[in-house]
Each structure stands twice: as structure tokens, then as C-alpha cells.
């Protein structure tokens, strides 16, 4: 090796022009978005006094109506339970039909696009639509979570199916089994722990979502939250927020324990 080569190798290669251009574009993007999002940090300083007053309105939290809040929180959890269970039931066939190693392309692709659509639209949007369709109340929330979660779980379920070991399935096939029997005996036992784990994750996140879909009238604690915020009852708002945080943490811990059981 010649000495000139050595000298060149002592330093890292020069950053290419394309890379520099990418950094430039990233900076420009940030500046442009700053403008569009009307970011004005000076307000945080100028109105600091107002904000302190506002914040002090939250404390001490007012738990006078706690029975009502807890009751609505339970409804929220119930919305999440049914929204998730219905989604799991629907995601099993859709997840299988979206898997490369199960369904032919002419089934797989339409199913995948349908699931993409369900996933792309937020629960809140579905909630607003279902409030119009089935009226105000928790059922609209259940349907909203059901539809969106089906899209999410079907994708996760199908990815789990695509990662299975094909050999046990072939072992079942060699006994003269029907394709449905191959799935029930060869595929599902392999993916079940992962499916349960995904379903529990979605249940946790659905408890969070369920407390928000209430804001558009789809039942539960969200409805309460929306009304007291609009009425400037900040001490009550604080109490409700504490109850939501406590419930969500509790469910996170419980479902983490449950998940361990299955793996």
C-alpha cells in the first residue's frame, strides 16, 4: 500500500454533497413548519403569570363527585373491553386472509387494503360517524374502537402468521388434513402467544382511546371531561385526570402480568 493511500485512510471520507443537501432541506422544513404552526415561545414567558393562575385553579383537585367519575371511568373500561374483543374476533379471519403464506394474492391484497383504510382513520373520526349513526352513548364508542382496532390487529396478526415455522404445518398436511385443520392445528398454536400479547397491548391503548372518544359524545369519562373543561371546572378536571391516569396505570400493570402468563 502506498503512503498516499495511508494518508487518505487516516481521516473519515468527506461528507458527500447529497448529505449536506439533506441537512439543508431538513433545516428549511423545520423553519417552514415553525411558521405554519404559529410557534411563539415568547408567550410562554410573557403570560407566565396568567398560566400560573390557571394552573393554581387545578389544585386542590375536587373529588366531591368521585362516585360519578369512577362510574363513568368504568363505562370507559367497558367500552374498551368490548371494542377490543370484537376487534380480536374480526382480526383473526382478516389477519389470516392477509397473510402471505395462507391466502392467495387476490384475497390478500384487497383484505390488506381494507385493513389499511380502517387503520388510517382515527378512532375519533369513526366515533363522530357512529354517534350520527347509532346516537350518542357508549355503543358508538365501542363501534369506533372495534373498527379501528380491527385494522391494527389484523396487520399485527398477519405478520405473526407470516413468521411461523412451516414444517409443523406440513406435518399436519401430510396426515391428509383439510386446509382449515392445517390452520387450527398447525398455525394457530404457533401464533397464539403473540396474538394474545398484541390483543392485550391494544386493550391498554383502547382504554386510553376510550377516554378520548367520549369527547365527541361516544360515552364514558370523555363526556364528563369535555363538559367540565368547557364549564371551566378545573379542580374537577384535575380529579378526573387523576382517575384516568390511575386507571390506565392499573390496567397497564395488570395486562403486563397477564401477558407474562401466556409467553
Amino acid at each position, binding site marked *: 500500500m502506498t503512503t498516499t493511500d495511508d494518508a487518505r485512510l487516516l481521516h473519515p471520507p468527506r461528507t458527500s454533497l447529497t448529505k449536506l443537501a439533506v441537512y439543508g432541506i431538513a433545516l428549511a422544513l423545520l423553519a417552514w413548519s415553525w411558521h405554519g404552526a404559529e410557534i411563539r415561545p415568547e408567550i410562554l414567558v410573557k403570560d407566565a403569570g396568567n398560566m400560573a393562575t390557571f394552573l393554581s385553579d387545578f389544585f386542590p383537585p375536587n373529588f366531591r363527585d368521585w362516585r360519578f367519575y369512577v362510574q363513568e371511568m368504568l363505562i370507559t373500561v367497558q367500552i374498551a373491553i368490548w371494542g377490543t374483543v370484537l376487534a380480536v374476533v374480526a382480526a383473526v379471519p382478516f389477519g389470516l386472509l392477509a397473510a402471505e403464506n395462507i391466502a392467495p394474492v387476490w384475497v390478500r391484497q384487497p383484505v390488506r387494503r381494507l385493513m389499511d383504510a380502517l387503520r388510517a382513520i382515527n378512532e375519533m373520526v369513526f366515533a363522530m360517524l357512529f354517534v350520527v349513526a347509532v346516537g350518542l352513548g357508549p355503543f358508538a364508542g365501542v363501534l369506533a374502537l372495534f373498527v379501528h382496532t380491527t385494522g391494527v390487529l389484523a396487520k399485527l396478526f398477519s405478520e405473526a402468521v407470516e413468521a411461523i415455522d412451516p*414444517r*409443523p404445518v406440513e*406435518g399436519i398436511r*401430510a*396426515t*391428509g388434513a*383439510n386446509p382449515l385443520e392445517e390452520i387450527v*392445528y*398447525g398455525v394457530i398454536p404457533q401464533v397464539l402467544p403473540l396474538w394474545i400479547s398484541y390483543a392485550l397491548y391494544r386493550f391498554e391503548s383502547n382504554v386510553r382511546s376510550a377516554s378520548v372518544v367520549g369527547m365527541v359524545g361516544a360515552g364514558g369519562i370523555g363526556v364528563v371531561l369535555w363538559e367540565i373543561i368547557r364549564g371551566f371546572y378545573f379542580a374537577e378536571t384535575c380529579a378526573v385526570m387523576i382517575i384516568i391516569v390511575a386507571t390506565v396505570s392499573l390496567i397497564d400493570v395488570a395486562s403486563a402480568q397477564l401477558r407474562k402468563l401466556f409467553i
Partner: protein
Amino acid sequence: MNAAMPTDKPAIRVSKLSKTFKGCKALETVSLDIAPGEMVALIGASGSGKSTLLRHLAGLALGDDGTGSVDVLGTRVQSRGQLASDIRRTRSRVGFVFQQFNLVGRLPVMTNVLTGSLGRVPLWRSLTGRFTTEERRLALDALDRVGIADKSWTRASALSGGQQQRAAIARTLVQKAEVILADEPIASLDPVSSRRVMETLARINTEDGVTVVVSLHQVDFAIRYCPRTIALKKGAVIYDGPSAALTPSLLRELYGSQAEELGTGVQGSASFVTGLPSGLALAANA
């Protein structure tokens, strides 16, 4: 023993079967007949087409378009690269034993063995897992026969390799298979387990009259357990005759430098086979 089938009809008939994988010849116009009740070894170096041939016999792989056919138990499995429409019925009469056992690891051994009856059980019962006491009895008897009845409710993945392979054989017993195709069933096993598995297969062959075709890496096992050997090289049959005639010199003649790969399996271990009463392998629990 009780070969109930008419002896004029071969249990397995392969005619002019060829298979090309991406321009590479895996099977080269293979033709052979195997009579009911035979126990045949299929030998050859790795890549010689043993597994490919067995998979074609069970209709798990398809031959080249336009040539060749496979018939098992008098029924068409495939011809000219097309699978027969009633393949599932034929497969239910043919047991397949895989090198990697192909059990469902998370299911109990009992459930794995019960899947052998899927070809007979109506769909609504199999999908809901409602096996009758009679079917469970059959599965337990099969597990008892291969010597692992005490492991019935253990997860298959918790078993040793040899036990898993015996569970896989029990699955073919529940199938009431008339033909067992075993694809390198002992290639992943230690010598003791290998012997047990081969003894089990040989016993099923002699006691039930089941036709057994077993692919092996090691000629010693072929000579020991199978009266007839079919040797493959580069996808073609290069020897088909009595196993006893497979002398080291003939093997060298057939395989040249590859012969070593086939001969070293049970080197210096002739005593271990002869010293074992044939029933012991089935009775012993590991």
C-alpha cells in the same frame, strides 16, 4: 405379516418422474415399484434427491410439467406435474415422518398424535377439538406402542429428539397408515435414539404389514433394517436390489469419493445393534 392388499398391485409406483429446481436436475426420470409390506431404504449422499423423491410420493412436491407419475396404494398422487384432486384422501393413508419431526411444539404430544385422525374425523369435530374417547384410546395405544405413553400430556417441544420422532411415528399409527414414508428420520438423532426409531419402524413393518420407505444417510442402517435398498445419485437410481449386496467395494464403485459419506454412520458399532433384543426399543421409556 398380514398383507391384506393384493400383491399384484404395487404399494408405490413411480414412473419416469423428473424434477428440475431452477435448471438443476433433482430427479432424473426415476421409475420404481415397491410391493406392499416391503421395507425399503433410500440411500444417497446429501443432495442426491432422497428427500425430493419422498416428498413427491406424498404429493408434498410436484414433478416437472408433462412427464412422470406417482401412484400410491393404487391411487394417483400426481401425474405430469398436477396433483390428484383426491390427494387428501390418499395422504391420510400415507404416514410421513420428517427429519425435523414436524410436530407442533406448543401442543401436547396427545394432540399432535390425534392429528393423525384428521383425515377421518368430520370437520366440525376436528375444528372444535372434540375427539371421541375411542380416538383418544387409539392415540394412547399408539403412544404406548412407541414407548412414550407417559409423555402424553407433555408439550411436544419438551421432548428429546428421539421421543419427538417416536411421537411422529405414533401419529402415523393413528392415521392407520398403510405406507410410511420416513425422510431421514434418524439424521438428527444420537445413535441410541436412532436405533430405537429404526426398530420401531421395522416392527410396524413386520407386525402390521405396513410398507415402509426410509431415506438414510448411513448404509449400515439400511443393511441392518431394510431388505431392499434403492440408491440415488444426482437424482437418478443407480442401484436397486438387496441391501446385503452393498459391499464397501460396490459403494465405492457407485459413489466414488462420496462413498465415505455413506459408510461411516455406525462405524465400530455392529455390537450395539446385535446386543439388543428387538422388543426392548419399544418397551423402554427414555
